[in-house]
């Protein structure tokens, strides 16, 4: 393990993972409380569009993720006024069209430029290949997100738990919702850098869902979620580093697989015991 702490890519991966875990833990708790997992998932998938476009334009995928995340979040909130079932279908159709265009962009990436691995990098992430320059950029975005969240925290929480009461107290509920969705878009762009666009929901929602089983109080849950996320990313980096000596190929297992698997196991560990307890004591929950 001595090589582990001297390797440059490992430093970058640990730093990028830490920033992402903290931001996504804090924002993820509010995503789960507001029941917006599908939105988080859709924003991740749509980030594919930004990531593949960024590859084609030869800029850092981070800016592709951020640009598309912010724009699409706004568009989704605009359509969100319709009734629930209509929104479900509209999101699905928009998602399908955007993924179709992503397919085309990725196809053009692989055929017209030399980035043969673009599909894998964008969809499943490649943290060890992240450039050192992207760490301060990610840290800056994350800090910006956390500051924005701190400013709107109280009205946001109130309008999540009790929209009617919030609007009665003069909270601009729609603007708060719009701002929050943009914030989710930025957070998803960070998680997309770490585990790729289609796995990013795991890092956004997973630690938060675990934490909310431990404590229903949002501040406590945010700290726990950030801790779970941090543990999962760092353990994932360490395991991926070790896996270069594992069969079958000795070329390393995907880092995203480890992170997602750890998050999933953590969720099951918190979820299953409470399920069994509830079954033993019917009506108890």
């Amino acid at each position, binding site marked *: 393990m001595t090589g582990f702490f001297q390797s440059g890519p490992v430093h970058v991966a640990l730093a990028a993972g830490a920033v992402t875990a903290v931001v996504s833990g804090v924002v993820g708790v509010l995503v789960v409380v507001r029941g917006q997992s599908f939105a988080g998932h859709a924003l991740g998938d749509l980030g594919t569009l930004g990531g593949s476009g960024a590859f084609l334009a030869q800029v850092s995928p981070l800016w592709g993720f951020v640009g598309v995340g912010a724009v699409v979040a706004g568009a989704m909130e605009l359509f969100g006024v319709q009734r629930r079932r209509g929104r479900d279908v509209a999101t699905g159709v928009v998602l*399908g069209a955007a993924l179709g265009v992503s397919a085309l962009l990725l196809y053009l990436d692989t055929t017209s430029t030399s980035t043969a691995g673009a599909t894998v990098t964008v*969809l499943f992430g490649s943290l060890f290949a992240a450039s050192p320059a992207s760490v301060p950029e990610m840290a800056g975005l994350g800090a910006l997100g956390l500051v924005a969240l701190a400013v709107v925290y109280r009205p946001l929480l109130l309008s999540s738990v009790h929209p009617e009461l919030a609007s009665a107290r003069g909270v601009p509920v729609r603007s708060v919702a719009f701002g929050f969705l943009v914030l989710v878009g930025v957070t998803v762009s960070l998680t997309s850098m770490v585990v790729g666009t289609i796995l990013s929901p795991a890092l956004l929602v997973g630690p938060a869902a675990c934490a909310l089983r431990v404590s229903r109080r949002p501040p406590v849950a945010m700290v726990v979620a950030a801790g779970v996320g941090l543990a999962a990313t760092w353990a994932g980096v360490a395991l991926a580093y070790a896996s270069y000596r594992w069969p079958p190929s000795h070329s390393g297992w995907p880092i995203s697989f480890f992170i997602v*698997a750890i998050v*999933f196991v953590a969720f099951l560990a918190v979820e299953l015991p409470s399920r069994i307890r509830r079954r033993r004591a019917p009506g108890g929950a």
Partner: protein
Amino acid sequence: MFSGVMTNAWLVASMIGVVAGVVGFFVVLRGASFVAHAVPLSSFAGAAGAGLVGIDAVAGLAVFAPIAALGIGWLSRRRRSDVVTALVVAAMLGLGALFLSWSSQYASAVYGLLFGDILGVSSGEVWLTAVLAVCGLAAVAVMYRPLLLSSVSPEAAAARGVRTGIVDMLFLVLVSLTTTMSVPVVGALLMFALMVGPPAAARAFTRAPARTMAVAVGVSVATVWTSIVASYLTTWPIGFFVGVFAAAFFLAGSAWTAVRG
């Protein structure tokens, strides 16, 4: 465009269009876009694992799609299902990424499975797809009334003695069956566009269930056929055309509703 390997593509795609239209009608009726999106994505691991072991992708899908669908159904019985679904999908996708990193044909294999490949159909798969299509349509015919009732009003269905829990599970199996058929051709990421876009468009023209289903089948088959032609002519991925054409039909349907007021 109609010879050799392409004949298989036309046959399979037509069957996919019919089944996706029928099953998609219930997906839209139940507001289950997320599940329709999640099941194909999760079954991606099965296709990737099949490639690793050296068996047919359809076989891998046939195992993983029902597991994913029933797993989501079981885990989400008592809670809001979206968190659980998101996590199951991510875990299965991570597994798929692992399987792909083990096999030698990394980038191109990922691409075909996620975004579709019109030349990815063998003659054996045509028969397999035909069997699956017949099973799926027969299942819908048998449970048509309870499925429809429980989709429109779960309370009324329960009051009439329909066991909604079992019907919900059977619906998930139907989605997974459609997934198994469609993923090799349309791709795991774009499969759900075919199940959501055409039926949603059909609802703009008529509200009677049987007629909506017929229109949905027509639109969905039209989507698949035009996508094959476009993909063949441009060599661009079929997933692109399926996603865009499905959305275009949905927009046309919405425009029609808006014009008629």
